């Protein structure tokens, strides 16, 4: 089996960063915030590189859609072992509205153009949490898909994919060309090491525009507002005993919540207060 693997990598806010919502509620603060490759994309790159190292695939191409900074993300993929990169230039309003549908169209167009045998993407991005791109790409290409992969092996002219589903593990056999989306336990991605980072600087990243691929980027979605989750209410010292509680009913009296009676360090059943044990603050 010898073919090309197309791997989608997304530049997202680093998972360790505390997200802050912009005051105008149009989005989250991204300026000056640390960005890195989406963790599921790292797993996808690792799997693709392992397939090539096992000589089951001959070339790994890393693709990213977005502004100039996406090239850093592609370089990380190259440092992990991808052979070349493709940067699909999307910026400004188009980038703000870029979603799974647009990305899938781009990936489908590139998969055809590069004559890929396999497209691997992360199961979801940690910013959008959409879990749609892989599936839409497969649908647009009319290719089979193995999603939430926790194990991938080549089986003749197809792939055997072990999928993590709610009920446990499901094994499917899919013919190539196919789309795979990676789940957490598929592999442990390697770190980019200094010599590989140096070598990656020499690998090629081609730039294309979505229009060159015949992809139109209008979004059918409009973001109305982005808001913080409701603030946790401050605690209130409850001065009275359970028997006096205005919201506790006879059936809730004497119920132990976490080993303590309601209104004594347990959870206020009226959900109005975060209850603190009297005497401690």
């Amino acid at each position, binding site marked *: 089996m010898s073919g090309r693997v197309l791997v989608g990598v997304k530049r997202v806010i680093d998972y360790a960063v505390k997200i802050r919502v912009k005051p105008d509620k149009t989005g989250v603060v991204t300026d000056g915030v640390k960005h890195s490759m989406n963790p599921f994309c790292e797993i996808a790159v690792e799997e693709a590189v392992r397939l090539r190292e096992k000589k089951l695939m001959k070339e790994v191409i890393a693709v990213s859609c977005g502004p100039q900074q996406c090239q850093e993300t592609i370089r*990380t993929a190259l440092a992990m072992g991808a052979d070349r990169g493709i940067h699909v230039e999307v910026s400004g309003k188009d980038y703000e509205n870029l979603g799974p549908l647009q990305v899938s169209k781009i990936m489908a167009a590139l998969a055809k153009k590069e004559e890929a045998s396999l497209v691997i993407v992360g199961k979801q991005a940690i910013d959008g949490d959409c879990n749609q791109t892989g599936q839409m790409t497969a649908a647009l290409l009319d290719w089979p898909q193995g999603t939430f992969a926790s194990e991938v092996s080549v089986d003749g002219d197809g792939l055997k994919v072990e999928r993590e589903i709610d009920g446990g593990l499901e094994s499917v056999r899919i013919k190539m060309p196919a789309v795979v989306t990676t789940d957490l336990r598929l592999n442990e991605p390697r770190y980019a090491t200094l010599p590989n980072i140096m070598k990656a600087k020499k690998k090629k990243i081609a730039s294309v525009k979505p229009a060159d691929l015949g992809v139109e980027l209008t979004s059918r979605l409009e973001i109305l507002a982005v808001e913080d989750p409701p603030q946790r209410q401050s605690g209130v010292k409850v001065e009275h005993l359970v028997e006096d509680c205005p919201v506790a009913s006879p059936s809730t009296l004497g119920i132990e919540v976490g080993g*303590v009676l309601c209104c004594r360090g347990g959870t206020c059943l009226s959900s109005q207060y975060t209850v603190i044990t009297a005497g401690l603050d």
Partner: protein
Amino acid sequence: MTFNWVRRISKLSRWQGAFQSCIFSCKRYSVQEQCRVPSSVVEAFRAVTGSDGVSMGTAVREQHGKDESVHSCRPPDVVVWPRSVEEVSALARLCHQHSLPMIPFGTGTGLEGGVGALKGGVCFDLQKMDRVLDFHAEDFDVTVEPGVTRTRLNSYLRDSGLWFPVDPGADASLCGMAATSASGTNAVRYGTMRENVMNLEVVLSDGTIVHTAGKGRRTRKTAAGYNLTNLFVGSEGTLGIITKATLRLYGIPEAVVSAVCSFSSVQAAVDSTVQILQCGIPIARIEFLDDVMIDACNRYSKLSYPVSPTLFLEFHGSERSLEEQVSLAEEITKANSGSDFSWAKDQETRSRLWKARHDAWYAALAIRPRCKAYSTDVCVPISRLPQIIVETKQDLTQNRLTGPIAGHVGDGNFHCLMLLDPTDPDEVQRVQEFTDRLARRALAMDGSCTGEHGVGLGKRALLREEVGPLCMGVMEGVKASLDPQNLMNPGKVL
């Protein structure tokens, strides 16, 4: 604290006071009913940090009076959360004015009782200062604030090909690691905090902010002036509060190979270690587990290592250099009648191979359920290691103590994980005496009473024996000069 107490008392009397005294009487330490910090000073603290930056709550204070050692909880009177070095300085000035003890607090993962507030006072919890600043990939350095832990820094650095290798096991604050001169399993190749801290920003007891190597300086070497950076490394909060550390970074190893090899005797295992080092093999980790520990690990992790002294090795380097390193190391172990090497290259198999070493702490605890564990920590020149380990094992047997041994033999440093029943005063006494004998045994062999955990609360007398009264006098002079009122973490180290 039994819940029934609470119910009964609250039904008997509806006074808060009764409830309060019930909770207090169930604790093992005595909490001062009268706080030593005047309320006007607490208000002044709030003016600096904001109202949510100060707490006097009992639970909060208890949390800050205890670390991971067996020393009992000694809570401070107040806990403050400064958000910047300017706030630390302002708070320190207030404490200095009112002669209040100050105790810096990172992650509370210390092992020698360093955070106990023996004289009450103010605990400076620095976790809100958690930025990674000034990362220079080309120069292999980064500056961090005290809230940044080791794993967080390495996660931040992962795309750059660099890492900070000092690994004490716990996910500790890097500035805290600087304060205790921490080390870890790969010190044999990458050094300890002493070798890897290039500059510190410190707040002294009177609020003065000092950059020990000069502000912003980050050279790989310097001959400029007194080495103040290394004075504060290992000072355990007794000379100042560390608010920034500039650290030396290393390249992430291209490839890693782990190996395990067992021996018929401690001597053979340590001889192999010494010879591996003398060959110049840049071994990254070389860990020793004695037969008791291996037995515990076999039971706990359901493994089947031969029950005898065992070495766990790890090699870092390029693919080709690893082949050389491993084959040379294997020759050496074979020459010492070591078993065949079991070795692994990929992450998943390496983790399995080293599982015994990773689970050692828990495996030791599982030997005797419901017991606490105390880890001893001494360091000797490598050539004396076989002797001290053999004598220590004899001591354990003679005194009916359970103490599986794990050691960083490449540094001559080893730990006995003493299992003790805290409710048995005889056993507690025997463990204490054993620990003192062990430390003195190490001192008698040109060693040190603490390889990496620090002096803290329990080893001050041993420090005196180790350095001698004249050197002690110099240390006390330095302390008196930097902290004449003895406000910085009083009762520790000296």
